């Protein structure tokens, strides 16, 4: 019988999974255990007159060392699994990464750093697999637990805003993007500022503010550059804005040319299929012929 295929979770399933395996503090007694054992052995050594049998008193200490080693080994195993989850995300193997993160999360309930990393990877995978509702649940969970001023928190808010736009929660997204604008100067030139710019561009696409997107296009290359090849999504979205404005604009030929220029830039960094999968709006341009001369113009 073939193994059951892992389907990305819905928002409700994600909520239930996170509630069932939420972060919890490790037992306080566990921290005191080595100290209590050590003190117990020392006290007995002082007061008991057992001769050669005194050596047996070292047995609990030996047991403690074995226990500590086993715990360290277990933690190391969990670190390795979390690292594997992150590596799969880096290699864009989102289904595999999501599956591993989903299954590993219950074991990470007492390790805050690893738990947060696994949930962050889960959110990223869900976004990439077009499950924005479930991704919002994961982003909310993380943002409730991270300090507001952390740069990571700003980046997560930008990602959540994009997921909100994808689920037509336009008011929430608008509020989030406005708040992120204040942090823009602080993180100018960094990945965070680039994600905020991407969120703004996606907002302009969703709300049909094509003219605004076109007017701000001069700086887009520099602003999205920190995203590496993922900047291609932004170039694709701008191409779509030009493409739509070409249908109403007076300067139609120029807008058409610009749409093709930006689309060829996007397709240079990411395949048209990848672009259209993430943003279905871009499907309209996915069969455009790609000519390097257009891009150079």
């Amino acid at each position: 019988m073939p193994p059951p295929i892992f389907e990305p979770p819905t928002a409700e399933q994600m909520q239930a999974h996170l509630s069932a395996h939420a972060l919890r503090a490790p037992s306080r007694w566990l921290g005191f255990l080595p100290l209590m054992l050590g003190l117990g052995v020392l006290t007995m050594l002082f007061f008991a007159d057992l001769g050669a049998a005194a050596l047996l008193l070292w047995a609990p200490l030996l047991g403690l060392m074995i226990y500590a080693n086993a715990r360290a080994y277990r933690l190391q195993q969990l670190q390795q699994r979390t690292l594997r989850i992150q590596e799969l995300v880096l290699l864009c193997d989102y289904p595999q990464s999501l599956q591993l993160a989903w299954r590993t999360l219950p074991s990470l309930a007492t390790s805050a750093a690893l738990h947060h990393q696994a949930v962050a990877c889960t959110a990223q995978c869900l976004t990439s697999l077009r499950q924005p509702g479930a991704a919002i649940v994961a982003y909310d969970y993380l943002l409730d637990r991270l300090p507001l001023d952390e740069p990571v928190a700003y980046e997560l808010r930008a990602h959540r805003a994009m997921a909100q736009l994808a689920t037509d929660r336009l008011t929430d997204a608008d509020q989030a993007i406005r708040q992120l604008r204040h942090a823009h100067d602080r993180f100018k030139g960094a990945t965070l500022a680039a994600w905020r710019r991407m969120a703004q561009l996606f907002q302009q696409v969703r709300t049909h503010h094509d003219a605004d997107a076109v007017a701000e296009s001069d700086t887009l290359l520099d602003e999205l550059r920190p995203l590496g090849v993922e900047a291609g999504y932004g170039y694709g979205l701008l191409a779509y804005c030009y493409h739509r404005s070409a249908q109403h604009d007076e300067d139609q030929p120029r807008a058409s040319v610009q749409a093709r220029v930006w689309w060829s830039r996007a397709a240079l960094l990411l395949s048209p299929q990848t672009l259209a999968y993430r943003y279905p709006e871009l499907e309209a341009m996915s069969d455009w012929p790609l000519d390097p001369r257009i891009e150079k113009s």
Partner: protein
Amino acid sequence: MTRDADATHRESNDTAPSDAAPTPVCPPFDPRALARRLAIDGAVHWGLLILVVMIIALGRFMTGPTAIVGDSLVVGVIVGWIWLSSVGARAAQQLPIIARAVEIDPAVADTQLAAAMRRPALPRSVRLMLYAHLAGLRHHQDRSAESAAICQAVLSRMNRPMLLGGRLGRGSVNVHMRVQLLLLLAESQLNLNNLAGAHLAIAQLHQTPRTLVQTMQMTALQTQYEVSAGYFQLALNHIEQKIRLAEAMPWPQCGAMHVMLAAAAHQAKRPDLADWLSRRAKLLCTADQLKTFSMRLVGVESCPAEG
């Protein structure tokens, strides 16, 4: 010196704290100092362990008042051991702080490293980690020769079999440190234009288990080595895999990889590939970065789109 200038000089001397001690920094690296410190650390730790075993063994023959003396000695040695462990633990706790300072503020990192290294009887692994961070610091300070020397010294110590038949490089933390040192060594050797040294370090990296990020760093260094050494066809082997890895790198490294591969493709007479890589590089890098990355490839004719 004019009177005014003289007065200004005197004034500045008055306001400046004349007795302020200069901030201590790590002295230039000396392999003999590292060997001496490791020998002292080892002697203290092993000495204490032997003392504990001896006291326990002799304790069996102690009776009456001498037994109390024996027990007190055991407690004393254990307290000493705990004190040593706490010194080591405090130094180990400092390691991530130092690692961060190396990236953000090298001057502060230099001071922190100097203070941490002065501590007596550190565990061997902590001492070696401190030196590994020193190698990283010197690399950041563009002191590639010193960085390479530290990497080589620490790596040779890590390879040395320890007592009880153990080897330091077995645990995953030590494997991680070994890979980081080899990456640093390869980069330092490339900066020094010592291609043979870089080749040796990269060859050792291939034999060591690595994380994906470390594999990316290795691939970037190997490509730089291959392009600098004129092995253009070799640089283009498994090009799809290399581009996939490059795409997962942070953007400056991703751009640098594209520039290097474009130069290799240009030299290997593959104009279409060179053009595609150059166009991507122009999107991924700023004009200044393109210039810097091309300058690294001294003696290699730059790719067409770049010029």
